[in-house]
């Protein structure tokens, strides 16, 4: 039994953490956050992410990747969450996963090596406005010839992406398509939002040329969503842990009524409950990553558990971060709102809690013999 990260994995975690503390701390985040007209994609950060190999984690070795799995990728996602790091790392990794899972040899060769090196920003467009992450949420149709029409909403970093993986319903059902977002028939429209640690846009397609990933179908699309959910859960767990740690540190120092605020029992007990919740969410993300990597029979359940628990932990911890900082935690000037807003955005991403709980019911209530 070894339910833990290996020494190498711990070293990776430390590297990412140290790098961010050194080179992209909350001051750097603030610069991106408070510039909503900017592209939210600092070039020096992206360059470093490429150099460090953090885009290559899941890319097979034959395409100059590290050939690792989600267990390693979630280490990076967690650190990025903890640092509320902007930039298209997550959607790029996810687009790479789509190509790895369902692309032809040529597609893989064309996409994965530059993606791993940081030479290609990519993203995924998996649902229409107001839609969920299953096939009913897709609002793009595909012809047999691979022409796409329709719309996708909330696409991360679409405006800086060189490649989009689009989920569309074609004559043979759901498929994934590679699209050049600068091609004819493609309209990209900025979507304003409150979370300055990302950039979002909608994608409107009118007879736009795209190439199908030949092995893609509904099952692969669902798998891709699960991978997105796992990395998002890891991001949320990072957010939750950082929010809690920062709140504890503040409440050890902050004195009211002649005592540190953290010595008031009602607050202390709430923080203790949050610690239990965040710890459980950490366990759950670890397990789900491993389960997806090794195709354990309960991988789907584990994923739904991990995302549900990460949603709860991050929602509660970031709300507590504001409440237990007192007035200062509610200001623009304090960093608490970065964590709060990122959690708010990520909680419904790749499946909100009710969707995952219903999935759990399917797997444990309906499936009971």
């Amino acid at each position, binding site marked *: 039994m070894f339910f833990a990260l290996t020494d190498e994995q711990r070293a990776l975690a430390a590297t990412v953490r140290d790098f961010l503390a050194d080179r992209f701390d909350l001051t750097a985040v603030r610069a991106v956050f408070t510039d909503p007209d900017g592209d939210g994609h600092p070039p020096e950060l992206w360059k470093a992410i490429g150099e460090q190999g953090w885009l290559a984690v899941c890319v097979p070795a034959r395409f100059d990747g590290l050939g690792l799995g989600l267990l390693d990728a979630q280490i990076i996602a967690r650190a990025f969450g903890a640092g509320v790091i902007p930039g298209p790392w997550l959607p790029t990794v996810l687009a790479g996963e789509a190509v790895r899972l369902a692309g032809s040899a040529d597609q893989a060769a064309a996409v994965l090596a530059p993606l791993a090196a940081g030479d290609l920003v990519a993203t995924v467009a998996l*649902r229409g*406005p*107001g*839609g*969920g*992450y299953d096939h009913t949420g897709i609002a793009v149709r595909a012809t047999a010839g691979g022409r796409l029409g329709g719309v996708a*909403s*909330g696409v991360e970093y679409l405006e800086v992406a060189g490649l989009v993986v689009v989920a569309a319903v074609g004559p043979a059902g759901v498929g994934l398509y590679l699209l050049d977002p600068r091609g004819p028939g493609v309209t990209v429209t900025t*979507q*304003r*939002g*409150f*979370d300055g640690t*990302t950039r*979002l846009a909608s994608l409107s397609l009118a007879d736009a040329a795209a190439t199908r990933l030949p092995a893609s179908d509904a099952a692969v699309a669902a798998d891709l969503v699960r991978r997105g959910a796992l990395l998002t859960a890891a991001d949320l767990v990072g957010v939750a842990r950082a929010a809690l740690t920062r709140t504890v540190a503040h409440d050890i120092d902050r*004195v*009211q*009524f*002649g*005592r540190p605020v953290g*010595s*008031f*029992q*009602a*607050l202390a007990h709430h923080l203790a409950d949050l610690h239990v919740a965040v710890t459980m969410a950490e366990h759950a993300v670890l397990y789900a990553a491993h389960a997806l990597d090794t195709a354990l029979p309960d991988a789907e359940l584990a994923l739904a558990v991990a995302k549900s628990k990460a949603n709860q932990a991050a929602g509660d911890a970031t*709300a507590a971060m*504001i*409440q237990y900082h*007192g*007035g200062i*935690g*509610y*200001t*623009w*000037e304090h960093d*608490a*709102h970065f964590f*709060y*807003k990122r959690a*708010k*955005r990520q*909680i*419904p*991403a790749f499946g*909100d809690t*009710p969707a995952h709980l219903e999935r759990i019911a399917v797997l444990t209530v309906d499936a009971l013999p």
Partner: protein
Amino acid sequence: MDLTHPPAEERFRAELRAWLAENIPAAWTEPGFWAGVGEAEGFDLRRDWERRKALAGFAGIDWPVEYGGRGGTPGMRAIYDQETQLARAPRSVNTLGLAFLAPTVMAVGTPEQKRDILGPMLRNEVIWCQGFSEPGAGSDLAALRTSGVLDGDEYVVNGQKVWTTFANRGDKIFTLVRTEPGSRRHHGISLLLIDMHAPGVEVRPIRQMSGVSEFGEVFLTDVRVAASECLGGIGNGWATAMLLLSFERGASGISQYTGFRRSYDEIVRVARALGRDTDPVLRQELGRRMVELECLRYHSMHVLTQVEQGRDLGAESSITKLQWSETYQDLFETFDALLGADVALTHPTADLDLTTLRQESFWTRSVTIWGGSSQVQRTIVAERVLGLPRGS
């Protein structure tokens, strides 16, 4: 039980409602209007509107006539709170003055203070700020450090105040100042009335997480204040401040209910626009929110009854605060829940503009902090209502 208002109060309602209908421009009630006009223009519009309202006789509803008020009943005050919300009247820009300073002046002010402060406040000629909180003294007010040193018949005041609403628009500020050097905690404090335009007063707006700036910091550097500009007596500031804060108890929650009930309906309309209003799980959440909202309404009738009967509500006001603030915050958690994956977008669909609701949603994070945090309110309920032994 008799939940009706007497005829005189209902006549007042009709009169007020008619005046509001005539005097609130239609544009003001359109979604996004107040978010659209700039902060400065919005303030000026509200300031002027409130002045006109006062001149029409709809200010100081339950103030005695001698202080420029209408001399109305608590029931009229509740009707006023409700009708102005229903009509989407702009919020007052002089809330803290009207709610807190005015009744304190009536209770302990000198005749000159009553004359000089109350009328101009009602007509919005003087906008009042509150200067209680300091960076190191939030919930723990007695930790304040702003000092006033007597020099002739003036105090020279130095210090810093924070969370001051409309700091950058205010004309005067009622401030807690430690006027007895070396005093500790509740002793040696005075409530001074300081001119915000005086030399040495500097203001820095505090931007909130919503992006809006309604609060500010006030820096006081060698500000000279006449010793006569003290309310309630020199050295008696703590008692005066406690008296002042006790007037929060007048609030029955009906104003909050009426506003939140409208937000609920707006949220339902958003759910409908997104096709989520038929989701059985979200319906349960909405139902749960409505339970708390309606309880707030019943509670406001209870409070009004107590006030009409002349009962001292005392620590019960903490129950009102907990009920409205926690309910309000939860309501907007439900708002987020029903937006699903598009929660982060200002316009999840082309014809859905969530700017105003989103700002309100961020605002709800603050209501459990200011005016006595939920933690402070629970301590009050535990000790003063339930009689549990003082803990820590």
